[in-house]
Structure formats: C-alpha cells, structure tokens
C-alpha cells in the first residue's frame, strides 16, 4: 500500500518537505525533484533530518547535476535515480502523492 511522495521545492524555501515527512507512512518513499534536490547531499542543514528518516529516499539525478551537485556527495540514506528510474518508482508504488 506504499505511496510515492514527490517533493519539488527546496526546504530552505518552502516547508513542503517537513510537512510531507510528518505525515507519511514508514513504508512510503520520497522522491526529491527540481529544487528539492539541493538537500540530497551531505553537509546541509537538512542532512540530519533526512539521515534519520524511516522512509526510502530518492533524488532525481539530472536535477541534482543541474544544480552543480553530484551523486558522489549523496547522503547515505539517499538513492539517485534518472528519469527511467523515476518511471519505475511510479509503477512500483500504489499511488503517487505530489506535495505541491
């Protein structure tokens, strides 16, 4: 019954990421796309929050690369996916919840 939650805004700008994380199930997944990708890496003020998540965390790597960040700096709890991987996540989960 797991949900794929998509967050597209930087948590430095909007509260969406925290608002999402405070409400989703443990077995859910979260995919960071667009400006949300900036917190997929180590060293940010959100590293601790994201390292302690029960959920599976993914980041869209073309969005990460566009912002000058690389897969090598990823948080240990974060998995990078490309667009085909994004499509797979959608099909593998029961439903998609875009947190806009």
């Amino acid at each position, binding site marked *: 019954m797991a*949900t794929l939650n998509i967050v597209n805004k930087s948590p430095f700008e909007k509260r969406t990421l925290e608002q999402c994380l*405070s*409400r989703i*199930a443990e077995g*859910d997944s979260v995919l960071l796309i667009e400006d949300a990708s900036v917190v997929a890496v180590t060293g940010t003020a959100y590293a601790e929050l994201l390292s302690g998540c029960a959920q599976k965390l993914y980041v869209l790597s073309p969005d990460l690369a566009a912002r000058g960040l690389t897969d090598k700096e990823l948080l240990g709890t974060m998995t990078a996916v490309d667009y085909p991987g994004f499509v797979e996540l959608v099909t593998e989960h029961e*439903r*998609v*919840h875009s947190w806009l």
Partner: protein
Amino acid sequence: MEDEYEGGVVKKFLYVNRRAPHGTVYALESLETVLIGAAFDQDVSVLFIDDGVFQLKKQQQPEGIEVKNFSKTFRALEMYDVEQLFVESESLAERGLSEDDLLVDVELVSRASVHELVDQQDVILSF
C-alpha cells in the same frame, strides 16, 4: 453530457488542500473539481491540512479584493454527496483555529493518522 462517466469503475479519490484561499487559484479550482467530479460517482474524500484549513474559515469577506466568496459553496457539498471532509487538528491549532471557526461539519484527524487516509486511496489530487 461530456462530464459524465459511464465506465462503471469506482475509485477512491482524495483531494488534498494545503493552501490558503485567495492568494492562489488552487482553493477555488479544487472546489470546482470536486463539484464536477460528483457526476462521476466516485468515492470522494477531501482533506484540509496546513494552510488549506483557512479555506473552511467562516466569515470570509473577499469583496475588498474583488473576488468571489466561493467559501459558501462548501455548504452545498452535502447535496452533491461529498460528505467526507477531513481536517487535521494540528493544522487548526497552529493557526489559532478550532472546529467552531469552520463553515461546515468536518471530521477531525490527527497528523499521525493522515497516512491512514492516504493509504486507502486510488488517486490523489493535490491543490
């Protein structure tokens, strides 16, 4: 009637409202979609969290900014068989609001239980 659906499939739809009314068009459009969706005989729930709870606030007076007071339409939802309106308690409390401030009867849910509602759904529409 283009806006009817004869396929016989009934799915569970959840509308998620997270924004204050009037600052953006989403609150108005969400209500519009719920009303049009009523003709499709689906199983519809509407969830108000975060600033979405302001959409149900009593005494909205948008005349000063020259926009329609569509909040009254929430009272009509019952006639359309949309009776499952869920409001998150924590969202109300953070904004200094209580159930008495709301235009319609709602079912209060806790933040920790929101995912139980989501887990039952087939389709989630975010506004």
